[in-house]
C-alpha cells in the first residue's frame, strides 16, 4: 500500500508539474470561484443575521423585556423595580417604556402609530436610537411639546422608503403634527427630530418623554408597559430573569430571540437559500472535477494502459488521480479563503450590502468554513473517482490499442 501511495504521489506530482499548465490553472480557478461562492453566501447570510439581530436588540427589544403578567396593562412600582434590576450582576442598563396607540396628522395626511413614552437619558443607555437621528435632535428629559418620529412615519420626503406611501411623507424636523391618542386627548407637537435605524418596526414608532406621557395618560406615573434590560456582554439572560423573577411574581419575561418572529422567518428563508445555493455550488465543483478528470483519462487512456502493462497497479493510478483532484480542490480552497478574507471582506466592509434592517457585513465562521471545505474535498474525490474507476475496468489491450 505504501508503494502504491508512493507511486501515486509521484505520478500525480509529475502530471501536475509537467502536464498542461493552462488546464491546471483553469481547474484551480474554477474551484476557487466555487469555494468563494460557498464562503460568500453563508458569510453574507450570517452577516445579515448578525446585523438584523444586533439592530433588533439595539433599537427595538433590548436583551430582556419585562412585562406585566396577565390582564394588568402596567408594571406597578416601576421605579423601585428598575433600581432592583440595576443592582443585579450582569445588568448594564435598564429603561422603562409606556406605549399607547395614536393617530398622527400632518397637512391633511394621517397615519397610525405607537407612541412610546421614554426617559431619554435611560433609554439612550439601553438603545441606540439617539445615534440614528437624520434630522433635528434627540429628546431632552424636560421636553413636553416635542415628539421624535421614526422615518417610516414622517416620510421626510425620502421617496424610496419601504412604507413611504402610507407615511406622512413630507414631515421634517420643526414641523408641527397633531397626535390623537387612543384614550381621547389630542395635542399638537413640534417634530424635534426624525430617526432612521433601518428596522421598520422601530422606524414606525414615535417617542415622547415620560413627563409628557404622564400628562397624556396620568395613570402611567411610576408605572411601565414594559421594562427593557441591556445585559453586559457574556451574561446569561436566563440567570438575570431568574433573579428578577425572585423579586416579584407579577412579571413575565421575554428574551430578544422571542421577539424576533419576523426575523426568524427571514433567517429561516436565508438558511434555505444557503442550502440550495451550496448544493448547486457543490454540484458545479463536482462536475468541474469530473470533466477535467474525464477528459484527462480519455486523453491518457493509452498511457494508463501502458502503466498497467508495466506492472503499475490500478490502485496507484486511481490514487494518483484522486491526489490531483485533492490538489485542485485544496489549492482552489486555499486561494478562495485567502481572497475572501483579505480582499472580499475588507472590500465589503467599505461598501457593505444594505438590507431593510441595515448594513450586513460578511463574516467567516470556522465551523462553516471547515464543513464547506470537507464537503468540497469529498465531492472532488468522488467526482474524480468515477471516470478513473471506469477507465480502470477497461482491459489493458483495449486501453493501449483502443
Amino acid at each position: 500500500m505504501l508503494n502504491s501511495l508512493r507511486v501515486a504521489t509521484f505520478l500525480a506530482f509529475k502530471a501536475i508539474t509537467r502536464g498542461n499548465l493552462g488546464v491546471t490553472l483553469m481547474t484551480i480557478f474554477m474551484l476557487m470561484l466555487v469555494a468563494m461562492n460557498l464562503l460568500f453566501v453563508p458569510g453574507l447570510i450570517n452577516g445579515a443575521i448578525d446585523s438584523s439581530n444586533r439592530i433588533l436588540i439595539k433599537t427595538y427589544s433590548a436583551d430582556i423585556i419585562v412585562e406585566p403578567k396577565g390582564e394588568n396593562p402596567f408594571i406597578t412600582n416601576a421605579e423601585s423595580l428598575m433600581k432592583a434590576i440595576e443592582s443585579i450582576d450582569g445588568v448594564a442598563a435598564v429603561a422603562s417604556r409606556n406605549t399607547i396607540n395614536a393617530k398622527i396628522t400632518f397637512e391633511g395626511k394621517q397615519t397610525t402609530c405607537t407612541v412610546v413614552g421614554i426617559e431619554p437619558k435611560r433609554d439612550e443607555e439601553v438603545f441606540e436610537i439617539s445615534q440614528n437621528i437624520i434630522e433635528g435632535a434627540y429628546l431632552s428629559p424636560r421636553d413636553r411639546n416635542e415628539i421624535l418620529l421614526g422615518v417610516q412615519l414622517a416620510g421626510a420626503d425620502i421617496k424610496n422608503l419601504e412604507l413611504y406611501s402610507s407615511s406622512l411623507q413630507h414631515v421634517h424636523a420643526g414641523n408641527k403634527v397633531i397626535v390623537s391618542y387612543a384614550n381621547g386627548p389630542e395635542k399638537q407637537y413640534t417634530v424635534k427630530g426624525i430617526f432612521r435605524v433601518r428596522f421598520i418596526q422601530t422606524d414606525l414608532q414615535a417617542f415622547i418623554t415620560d413627563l409628557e406621557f404622564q400628562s397624556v395618560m396620568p395613570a402611567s406615573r411610576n408605572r411601565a408597559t414594559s421594562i427593557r434590560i441591556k445585559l453586559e456582554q457574556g451574561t446569561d439572560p436566563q440567570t438575570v430573569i431568574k433573579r428578577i423573577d425572585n423579586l416579584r411574581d407579577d412579571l413575565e419575561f421575554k428574551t430578544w430571540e422571542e421577539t424576533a418572529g419576523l426575523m426568524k422567518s427571514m433567517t429561516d428563508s436565508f438558511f434555505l437559500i444557503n442550502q440550495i445555493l451550496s448544493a448547486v455550488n457543490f454540484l458545479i465543483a463536482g462536475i468541474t472535477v469530473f470533466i477535467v478528470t474525464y477528459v484527462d483519462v480519455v486523453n491518457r487512456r493509452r498511457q494508463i494502459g501502458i502503466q498497467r502493462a508495466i506492472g503499475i497497479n490500478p490502485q496507484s493510478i486511481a490514487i494518483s488521480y484522486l491526489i490531483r483532484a485533492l490538489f485542485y480542490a485544496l489549492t482552489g480552497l486555499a486561494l478562495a479563503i485567502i481572497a475572501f478574507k483579505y480582499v472580499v471582506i475588507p472590500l465589503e466592509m467599505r461598501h457593505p450590502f444594505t438590507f431593510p434592517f441595515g448594513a450586513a457585513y460578511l463574516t467567516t465562521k470556522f465551523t462553516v468554513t471547515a464543513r464547506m471545505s470537507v464537503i468540497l474535498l469529498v465531492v472532488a474525490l468522488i467526482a474524480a473517482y468515477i471516470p478513473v474507476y471506469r477507465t480502470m475496468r477497461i482491459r489493458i489491450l483495449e486501453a493501449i490499442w483502443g
Partner: protein
Amino acid sequence: MFDVRNLSKVYNMGNVPVKALDNVSFTIDTGDMACIMGKSGSGKSTLLRQLGLLDQPTSGEIYLDGQEVTKLAETARAALRLQHLGYVFQEYALLAELTALENVYLPGMMLGGKDTDYKKKGKELLNLVGLGHRMHHYPRELSGGEQQRVAIARALINNPQVIFADEPCANLDTISSKRVMETLVNLNRDVKVTVLFVSHDPDDKKYARSVIIMSDGKIVDRVTSPNA
C-alpha cells in the same frame, strides 16, 4: 520456463468468432532467445500478449516456472508482470511526462526498495543500453530507436526472468533496428534474461536461438536458428 498447453484465443468480430490462436502448445526454456515469426494476422502478437499476461486466453493454460498463470486475478497478474516479466511494445510506449530515467525506474519504485537504489539501477540500465547521456531527456526529445532502448531498460529494472518484445523494430530505420536487436542479444547473453520477441522480418532470425513459425493462429514449425 514457459509451458504453454492448448492455448486458444477467440475474438468476436461482431457475431463472427475469429480464432487468433488455435490450440497452441510449446515450451520456452530459461535463457532462450526465441523469435515468433509469421505473416501479419498469424497470431504472433496475440500469443506474446497471452504470455506477457496482458490478455486472457479463451482456453488453455500457461505455466510460468510450474505455476498456472492464466486464471490469476488482475492484481496477481499485475504483480507477476511487475516482478517477473518485462514488456517492450511495438510503439514507443513511454510515459510522456516522465524523463527517460523516470520511465525506467517507475516499475522499480512500484516494487519498493530504497529511492537511491532504483534510481541508481535506472542509471546503470540506461548506460547499459547506451543512453546514459540521455537520461534526463523526455520521450519527445528521443529518436524512435532511443525510445525503444529506454523501453528495454525499463523492462529490465526489476530483474525480470523474461523480456517480451513485440516487433520492437517495426517503426525503426535499419541502423536503429540493428542497435535495438543487438541490445536484446547482449542482454540475453550477458544478463542471462530470457528474451521472446515477435518479428515479421526474416532477417531477424539471425538474432534468435529458436524460431517459432506461426500461421493462422497455429505453430507450423519450430526451428533452431543455425546463426544463433
